[in-house]
């Protein structure tokens, strides 16, 4: 029944999906946290930039962003992100697009975490002479992250599934292989089921593990 799988590098395709997810997750965690810091910072210009970025980027469909990285950045502005061949260029462009998109959601999750930290703590920290960066880095963010593991897990699961959009610019990940197989094998339902199962295998453990972690580390107030 599953002989149509022969000759296809299913694991390889899902490995690219995993790579896309991991790189984009790290990138968007960093950029998203920076954005959240901007949104709570005392500088109006940075606050404005953070707000504008989040509200614009999260309202653009991901497909549009990904296609733009290829047609706009690469084909029109010749931005290659330091890579030589098309496969690497596309992979990096896809990661860039995914980071740009996902960090808007990471930012909002982290900001909601910051809101759970009582204002008194920041005031106390400032009173003993810590700077804004120190208050945020030493007092607020460590507590904020502990309370948003759950929401961040949701963002990570969404990111894992969103990597399939990278097929639109030809990154050879799972959805790309799925299209190729459907074209050749005329087995729409079975092939879709196999790939759906693959994604469940990727995301279900993420949800379970991070759900457990989230309970473990949550700040009890």
């Amino acid at each position: 029944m599953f002989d149509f799988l022969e000759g296809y590098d299913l694991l390889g395709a899902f490995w690219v999906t995993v790579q896309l997810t991991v790189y984009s997750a790290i990138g968007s965690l960093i950029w998203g946290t920076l954005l959240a810091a901007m949104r709570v910072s005392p500088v109006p210009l940075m606050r404005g930039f953070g707000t504008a970025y989040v509200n614009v980027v999260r309202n653009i469909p991901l497909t549009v962003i990904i296609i733009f990285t290829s047609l706009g950045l690469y084909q029109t502005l010749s931005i290659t992100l330091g890579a030589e061949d098309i496969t690497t260029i596309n992979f990096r462009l896809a990661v860039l697009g995914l980071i740009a998109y996902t960090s808007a959601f990471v930012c909002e999750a982290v900001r909601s975490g910051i809101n759970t930290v009582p204002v008194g703590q920041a005031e106390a920290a400032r009173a003993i002479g810590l700077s804004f960066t120190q208050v945020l880095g030493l007092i607020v963010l460590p507590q904020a992250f502990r309370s948003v593991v759950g929401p961040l897990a949701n963002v990570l699961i969404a990111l894992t599934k969103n990597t399939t959009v990278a097929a639109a610019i030809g990154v050879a990940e799972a959805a790309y292989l799925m299209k190729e197989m459907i074209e050749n094998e005329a087995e729409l339902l079975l092939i879709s089921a196999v790939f759906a199962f693959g994604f469940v295998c990727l995301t279900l453990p993420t949800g379970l593990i991070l759900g457990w972690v989230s309970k473990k580390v949550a700040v009890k107030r």
Partner: protein
Amino acid sequence: MKLRKVTAAAATALVLSLTATACGGDGDSDSADTGSGSGGGDKITIGVKIDQPGIGQKTADGTYEGFDIDVATYVAKELGYEAGDIEWKEAKSADRETMLDRGDVDFIAASYSITDERDQKVDFAGPYLLAHQDLLIRADDNITKGEDLNGKKLCSVTGSTSAQNVKDEIAPQAQLQEYGGYSECLTGLENKVVDALTTDDSILAGYAAQEQFKGKFKLAGLKLSNENYGIGVKEGSDLKAKINTALEKMVEDGSWEESVKKNFGPANYKYEPAPKIGQIVE
């Protein structure tokens, strides 16, 4: 107590009226379905491509045009349906077998290449056109054989057989850029970021013949593969024989030639003569 009774009565009345309307709606759509689905009524449903210029395209005003549309219209007429009785339905490449299997369409004419895998799922009438994988290049460029492609940048559609052919056989050293659709490739070709766009020559001819691209691109004429376009029908359907007869008649009375010229002509496409029914070129 009284209030509750009134409410209950009102609720019952509401539910009854809703069910009544729902039934009415169902009945209507049922009769419409049997009309188009089985082909026995006064309508016929045909699956076509709606985004391939020259082959099958839905125009801005909602009409359909292209070679596949002409063939489908001719066949439908032979089956006893006037042009007004045809209901067009988009048949995306991935959905074609499922659509036929479920009976959503009576037949499919949508640049549907006959392959062994597909032949096991559905039946094919035809072939009615022999196309080849080819390249669309800038008018001032020159590529004369498949090996020339090594080291060049090529564009095609994600997962398509043409893209796989390039990677596996024709030019493994070529760099392949893949997009969701052909139009994205055309931007790259115009900006000189990619050197060629590859797929069936019939589809390429349609793009090159478009008003905004006239004179900018040309076909390389390499004949990299053979694609036998067939009309897909549900497995075991008696439509296959009838469609074959219709196709033969279309070639005989010259409508076939006329339609090929009309749809692909402006691109200087050297089309193959009409294939014989059942003669599949490997």
